[in-house]
């Protein structure tokens, strides 16, 4: 069925207009603001400040460290889970139930989730209570308000995304390839290392990209879990806008985060593309 020009215009026009008005235009305005000073004159002073003051790079570094940490943790937890769901859970109904259990936390508010972690990891929280009750420690451990606690709580939220990305590649993997490996003398471990894992890398790449980009732009979870002791880029940008009312510098910081993230992702994908790991095997 061929649709005419007018229908195409109307069908595409809606979303394009929406995207334009609510994303492209504000983005362009922000990009412009990053190059303006308070009175509206064009200046590069904000970018100069960014380039010369090491403080902002340290915040960026922490942000990316946390992003990488979350990707790694979701991979370490999510891959085995996806593998188990695909290869060891035979009933599709059970698979769906487990996945729903994984995803349900996402339906709760981010703030509530973060406070849940405080209840778990706080000085008077569950983990410390158990450890003291078992006599393993005498003083409560500092589990919360650390970089690790930010990574863990973000990973908890991002886990279903990694499981889904890896799981879909594993589900669609040609089973006879695994049988062929066994037929040729490979035991279960070798089959996994030589066949299953290499062929599942596109899913790992996709999952880690999603998790990384969501983690470096996360705001609520790092804010609460940092307890004021750590600062990530999103929090810094928030400060510029809402506390200091320096919209221009805030815009520059935003552009910096965007550009650096894009560069990182591009480098990651290029390296992997070279070794042929980005597209799923036929």
């Amino acid at each position, binding site marked *: 069925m061929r649709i005419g020009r007018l229908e195409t215009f109307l069908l595409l026009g809606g979303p394009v207009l929406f995207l334009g008005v609510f994303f492209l235009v504000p983005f362009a305005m922000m990009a412009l603001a990053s190059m303006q000073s308070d009175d509206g004159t064009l200046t590069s002073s904000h970018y100069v400040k960014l380039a010369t003051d090491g403080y902002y790079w340290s915040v960026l570094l922490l942000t990316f460290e946390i992003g990488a940490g979350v990707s790694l943790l979701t991979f370490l937890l999510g891959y085995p889970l996806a593998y188990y769901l695909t290869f060891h859970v035979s009933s599709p109904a059970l698979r769906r139930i487990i996945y729903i259990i994984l995803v349900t936390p996402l339906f709760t508010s981010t703030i509530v989730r973060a406070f849940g972690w405080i209840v778990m990891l706080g000085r008077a929280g569950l983990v410390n209570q158990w450890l003291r009750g078992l006599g393993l420690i005498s003083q409560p451990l500092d589990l919360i308000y650390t970089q690790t606690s930010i990574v863990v709580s973000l990973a908890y939220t991002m886990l279903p995304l990694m499981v889904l990305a890896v799981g879909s590649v594993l589900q669609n993997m*040609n089973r006879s390839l695994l049988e062929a490996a066994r037929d040729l003398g490979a035991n279960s471990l070798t089959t996994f290392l030589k066949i299953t894992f290499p062929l599942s890398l596109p899913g790992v790449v996709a999952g880690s990209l999603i998790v990384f980009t969501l983690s470096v732009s996360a705001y609520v979870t790092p804010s609460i879990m940092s307890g004021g002791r750590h600062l990530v880029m999103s929090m810094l940008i928030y400060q510029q806008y809402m506390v200091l009312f320096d919209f221009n510098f805030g815009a520059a910081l935003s552009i910096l985060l965007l550009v650096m993230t894009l560069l990182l992702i591009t480098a990651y994908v290029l390296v992997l593309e070279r070794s042929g790991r980005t597209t799923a095997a036929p």
Partner: protein
Amino acid sequence: MSDLISIDKLVKRYGSVVALGGVSLNIRRGEFLSILGPSGCGKTTLLRAIAGFVEPTSGEIRIDGQLMNDVPPNRRPVNTVFQNYALFPHMTVAENVAFGPRRAGMARGEITRRIAEVLLAVGMDGYGDRYPRALSGGQQQRIALARALINQPQVLLLDEPLGALDLKLRKRMQLELKRLHQDFALTFVYVTHDQEEALAMSDRIAVMKQGEIVQFDNGQEIYRNPASRYVADFIGEANLIDCVLDGGSGVRLAHGSLVLPYSCSGSDAATLMVRPEDIHLGDAPGDAAIVVVPATVRNKTFIGQGWRLVIALDTGHVISAQPPASAAIEQLIPGDRVTAWWPSERGRLLTR
């Protein structure tokens, strides 16, 4: 020749579905055996049970005298050529072929030598550095073969390997497989639904129906003496004509009075099987050892090697005839009256 594989009363059930209902089979060392049947008859299940991918519900599989029931596929002396080739897409041809020997811990130099040897044997030398996605179906198939052969298994299992190839290529590959079977002196177990293929390549054929073997013999025997209507119909073309018993053990065509020179006992109904190529049209020789039935030509088709005619016997049965080509046959047109006859020993009475 001794038995290399012996399968004893193998049963496989999936819930209430019986995929294999007590299959017993002995495969001789060095033979080319085909397992033949339509989709769903259990032939692939049987093959996978030998390979170790299907755990039997009951029954035994022995290879070279050793019980294989608890032996995983990676420790059985068999290799499989899969229907969809299952070449590892992230490895080159050479890496694919080297996979088996690497698992067995063979030395690098030895592996390289063997890869070259086996690729030459399948006609794919020089393709070592290519990736499977750059190969055609026929080429991938040959690499799959090479990958299995390089391990010098006691048994090579082939699961409908030629299904995806076009007719000409398939015929060529059939000859190649036969040659490889002889050159490497291996035992081949070949699953197919193509009866022509099975007849062309095998020493013996096991015909399967709904999880059971209904006839197991060499191709000629099965063709000449099918054990049942099912086998007669599945292998080659067959005319199956209803007969009724004529007092005692005599037999005649249903709806007619012609008494046939066949006998049978112990059942109420019988079917006469005659192959179209055994039916002659025209004046019958004066031999006593022939069966003669008057008929009318219904239609005629040219099939290159000769003519195929559909004729209606006076008893009402409609059968196919593919007589030797002659000028008289060419001149027949639908509606013509004709005498159909066949040597009586070419007909078979089937009671199942």
